[in-house]
């Protein structure tokens, strides 16, 4: 009677054609990288950029699955936590200690945002939720500008500025570092969700809150933890953006838009899809910028939006989403 199950549901998982397509893309990138040094360089840089999109897209997907709302403030939350890391380094905390302290602060921040702002209106209206996240966007933006100013700030480069040469290819240590840290945080999160009791309870709470509470899961706590983890991922994205974009209140705004495109491309309900989507968009944008003459950097955002529109029109459930109708 009162919604122990939903009537239609998008299940996730890649279909065979999608997997074949992805395999083809991988082969293309590997072959291209072996043939051309510049291609290899652009691919690695694109993956590094894409890994940041992937982290933020995954944060969006986690929250969408748990609370069924797009958190428009995700990027600004990431930006704010990056400023916290900056403040910590000003207080002479070493970079990596500040990094991990910031993750903890971000976790608490995300949980509090859920408990204080989202939970009270969660079951009342989707519009109210959207307005709250947009309001939070503006609030954070204003507070950060008020506290730290709108001018560029610089943090210590976490990975140094060395460049590795493999054959004729130059890889920057920063790109490799960004790629590794982003992918590692995604993997840690995946392990948490897939192999721990807490992760299982969080998935259950997101999928079927009523049934989860009947087996003893404290659903509100699980959703708060979900928001906390999403904010942590956002913090990783922000901290990994800083070395290339530097600190400014607007640093995550374009990245949030790319991450929307990545999340939609992957299928909004699919964590794996959002990661693949982020990497694809990162590489795609970089290669287009390199090889398509007229695609200057001003066209990067329009191209990402073109991807978003095409996906929404042709495959609204994304690469990894499949609509399934099931009996109630």
């Amino acid at each position: 009677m009162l919604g122990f199950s939903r009537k239609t549901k998008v299940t996730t998982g890649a279909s065979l054609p999608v997997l074949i397509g992805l395999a083809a893309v991988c082969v293309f990138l590997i072959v291209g990288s072996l043939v051309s040094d510049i291609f290899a360089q652009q691919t690695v840089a694109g993956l590094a950029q894409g890994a940041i999109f992937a982290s933020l897209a995954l944060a969006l997907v986690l929250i969408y699955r748990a609370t069924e709302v797009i958190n428009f403030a995700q990027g600004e939350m990431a930006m704010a936590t990056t400023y916290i890391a900056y403040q910590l380094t000003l207080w002479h905390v070493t970079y990596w200690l500040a990094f991990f302290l910031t993750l903890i602060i971000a976790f608490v921040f995300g949980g509090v945002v859920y408990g204080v702002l989202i939970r009270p209106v969660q079951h009342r209206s989707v519009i109210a939720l959207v307005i709250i996240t947009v309001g939070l966007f503006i609030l954070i933006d204003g507070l950060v500008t008020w506290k730290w100013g709108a001018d560029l700030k610089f943090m210590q480069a976490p990975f140094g500025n060395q460049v590795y040469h493999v054959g004729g290819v130059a890889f920057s240590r920063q790109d490799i570092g960004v790629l590794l840290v982003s992918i590692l945080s995604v993997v840690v999160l995946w392990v948490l969700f897939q192999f721990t009791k807490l992760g299982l309870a969080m998935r259950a709470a997101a999928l079927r809150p009523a049934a989860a509470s009947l087996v003893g899961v404290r659903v509100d706590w699980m959703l708060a933890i979900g928001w906390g983890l999403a904010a942590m991922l956002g913090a990783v994205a922000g901290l990994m953006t800083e070395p290339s974009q530097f600190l400014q209140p607007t640093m995550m705004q374009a990245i949030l838009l790319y991450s929307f495109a990545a999340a939609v491309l992957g299928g909004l309900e699919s964590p794996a899809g959002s990661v693949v989507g982020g990497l694809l968009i990162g590489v795609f944008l970089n290669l287009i910028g390199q090889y398509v003459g007229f695609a200057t950097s001003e066209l990067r955002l329009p191209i990402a939006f073109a991807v978003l529109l095409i996906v929404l029109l042709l495959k609204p459930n994304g690469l990894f989403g499949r609509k399934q109708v099931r009996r109630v």
Partner: protein
Amino acid sequence: MAALLVLENVDARYGPIQALHGVSLTVDEGSIVAVLGANGAGKTTTLRAVSGTVRRSGRVEFAGKTLRAGPDGTARRGIAHVPEGRGTFAELTVWENLRLGAYTRRASKDDFARVEQYFPWIDERRSQQAGTLSGGEQQMLALARAFMARPRLLLLDEPSLGLAPLLVTEIFRIIRELNEHEGLTVLVVEQNAHIALQLAGDAYVLEVGRVALSGPSAELQQHESVRRSYLGY
């Protein structure tokens, strides 16, 4: 026998609609009690009033203490509720469903072994998505999941719903075994009065949110109005 669950004068409402009007019932430890009634009589709501998934007033007492908690707290007190629609997690695997059943405690290998004893097919299906099981298997999975919690009281909402007669018999056989061998106390809600009265020691008949009749199943089976309204002869 000591009373495990006592409802006294319980009201329950969905918004402006009152679904239960002063329902009182008692479930003794180790017994099986059935709640019968037509659609909309308040059977499901009675279970929901126990597990705290509907707004209730009146006294609900479990193992000598008043129950005030919401659904998750009720589960931790040792009450497993298999709701309407079975409450299985269709998107998760059989194995994950069982692990969630034992969420309130530390599940051991022994727990899984005991589940297999009653549901021998479950082990080879452990990595299958629960939503792809047949209706009967899903109902059994729901039972198995509830049993993983090692509850003191099992609340079952229409276990026969939508199942073929042979499967219904099988499910009720398992419920009886769990009751006899594991000492599990069961409060079961059923439309199928015939099979419910065979299973339960005592039964209550609800009509529009009130207890219309109650007593030992054997007596109710003989009762004129029960025979006519619910047993069909």
